[in-house]
């Protein structure tokens, strides 16, 4: 498609888009800023799922649950304690990550399609929990009036500050996802997705890779939950239903699995069209259903592939810490030569 565009031009377009995103509150009316912030929240949320679904190839239908864990933990902390926002974010992210690890542990025994059903069940149980534990979660009415807090003296109450904060977090998360995708661990996740047996034969610890990717993906979704609380100042169970889990699967699929830019493109299309094309509202799920079918049948790489933004075999970058995770004990020491050979093998696998 647009692959004819030189790479430098793409980088320039990206840089211009980033500058435009930073200047957005000065350019457009508050409603658009609010929609943009919502798109970014869903970008982070979908980035979390993308690690599980896109990279490791595990289907999570309960991702709204970990999103909800992050949102409710941060809401409770912001309401009840005067904790600094950074600590609240850490607590919510870690909380969601731990829940994700626990759910991910079931992947140890239950294979791919079973796991989809387990996560579906976990999502349902979490929703029942939100409705029923009124003292903790506010029940069906949720928790209103959550203070925005401030980030090291930066007051997040005005919308444009909230937006800029969300933008900053989104950029950090996307950067993290980019690095993760190019690390040894990212390659390991792709290898597990393509063929578990071959991955194991290459010295990848398959169960650990699965569980860790579940934990990381859930932690990122929890962070998205905090951002949503900051944006809306409110949490209620309606935004953590199964519908939401399916919506985020749609975003990842439509945007492009296993790409950094995919979740952003998917969010822009799915959330943006929801907000701006009200006329579409009645036919929304049919339109996205058709779009899902079309993309899966003809363009499995989603929008990222259509725009020519995804490279099939991205160059690996060597990282001091992440490079070690998932490597089996007793595997050859990370001499450059051995690693390159391994990478070559993985490349072959992934492209197969």
């Amino acid at each position, binding site marked *: 498609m647009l692959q004819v565009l030189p790479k430098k031009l793409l980088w320039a377009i990206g840089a211009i888009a980033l500058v435009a995103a930073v200047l957005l509150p000065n350019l457009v009316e508050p409603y658009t800023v609010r929609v943009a912030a919502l798109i970014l929240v869903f970008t982070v949320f979908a980035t979390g799922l993308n690690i599980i679904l896109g990279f490791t190839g595990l289907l999570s239908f309960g991702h709204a649950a970990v999103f909800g864990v992050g949102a409710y933990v941060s809401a409770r902390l912001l309401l009840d304690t005067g904790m600094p926002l950074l600590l609240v974010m850490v607590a919510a992210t870690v909380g969601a990550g731990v829940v994700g690890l626990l759910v991910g542990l*079931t992947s140890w*025994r*239950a294979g791919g*399609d079973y796991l989809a*059903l387990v996560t579906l069940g976990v999502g*349902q*149980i979490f929703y029942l929990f939100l409705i029923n534990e009124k003292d903790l979660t506010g029940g069906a009415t949720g928790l209103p009036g959550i203070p925005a807090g401030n980030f090291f003296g930066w007051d997040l109450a005005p919308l444009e500050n909230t937006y800029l904060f969300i933008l900053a977090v989104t950029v950090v998360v996307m950067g993290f996802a980019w690095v993760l995708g190019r690390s040894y661990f990212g390659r390991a996740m792709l290898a597990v997705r393509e063929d578990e047996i071959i991955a194991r034969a290459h010295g990848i610890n398959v169960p650990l890779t699965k569980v860790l990717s579940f934990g990381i993906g859930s932690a990122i979704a929890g962070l998205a939950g905090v951002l949503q609380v900051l944006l809306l100042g409110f949490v209620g169970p309606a935004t953590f239903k*199964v519908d939401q889990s399916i919506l985020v699967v749609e975003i990842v699929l439509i945007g492009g699995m296993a790409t950094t830019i995919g979740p952003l493109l998917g969010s822009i299309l799915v959330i943006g069209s929801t907000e701006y094309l009200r006329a579409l509202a009645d036919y929304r*799920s049919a339109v996205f*259903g058709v779009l899902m079918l079309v993309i899966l049948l003809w363009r499995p790489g989603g929008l990222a592939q259509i725009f020519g933004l995804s490279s099939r075999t991205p160059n690996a970058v060597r990282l001091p810490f992440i490079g070690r995770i998932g490597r089996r004990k007793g595997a050859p020491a990370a001499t450059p030569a051995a690693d390159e050979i391994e990478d070559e093998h993985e490349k072959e696998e992934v492209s197969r």
Partner: protein
Amino acid sequence: MELLQQIINGLTIGSTYALVAIGFSVVYGALGLVNFAHGDILMAGAFSTYGLYTLGVPLPLACLGGIVVGSLLAVAVEEVAVRPVLTQHLLIPMMTTLGAGLIIRNIVERIWGNGTLPFPSFTGGGYVHIGDLQISKSAVVTLVVAFVAMFAFLAFLKFTKAGFAIRAVAQDMTAARLMGVPVNRTIAVVYLTGGAMGVVGGLLYANTLEVVYLGMGFAVLLKGFAAAIVGGIGNLQGAMIGGLVIGVLESTVGPATGSYRDAVAFVLLIAILLVRPTGLLGARIQERV
């Protein structure tokens, strides 16, 4: 007596779960694919029956019409969303069927709206008394129809040529093709019969609750999933037993858990998967279907 009463109520609702689970399991057993459109297909079938009934068609005929609509939808899903991606990573057909389900649900919503509509009971009101037990007539109908449908389906698989073809495809698709089994047609039959079983389950569920609503497909499908897994996914007798176990547990243990009644099925599902990943009858997974 109270307990026995609860068990019978549980068997009634459980038999509808079992039918849905069988429809889901036959597809999984034959192809190893999860059909996420199953719930929406059975919901569309139940709504079609409702629609035909409100147009003045007699109820039995309307039910038949609903089953036909559901079966055709299931074949359409197979042709559009499953056939082209049959050989790909199992994740892909899962998500294409999910997309197909979204489309079906949207169409039903456009036609009948998203409200809860009254569904005519097959028998009207009334109870049958056996000793102290009080069983509603519609529960009797549900139990009888469910068991007849289940055993008819098992007999279909065992004794007919098409059923034999399904079992052959389930065992080894390539070998079946080499032996002259029309594989593509057989897969269509798998989806057709699976959809029909789902709609029968959905109709009995609607008959038990006396309503149809847009979310019912998903609600029943979740229980059907749980039933299929508890019994050993792909195993039809297992799906039957799983459905009945979940129904009975819901109505005996359920009241004690208060508002967490719907969680019973999922807790059981997760527990079974962790302890016995192949389900209660999992040892027989090799000869599924």
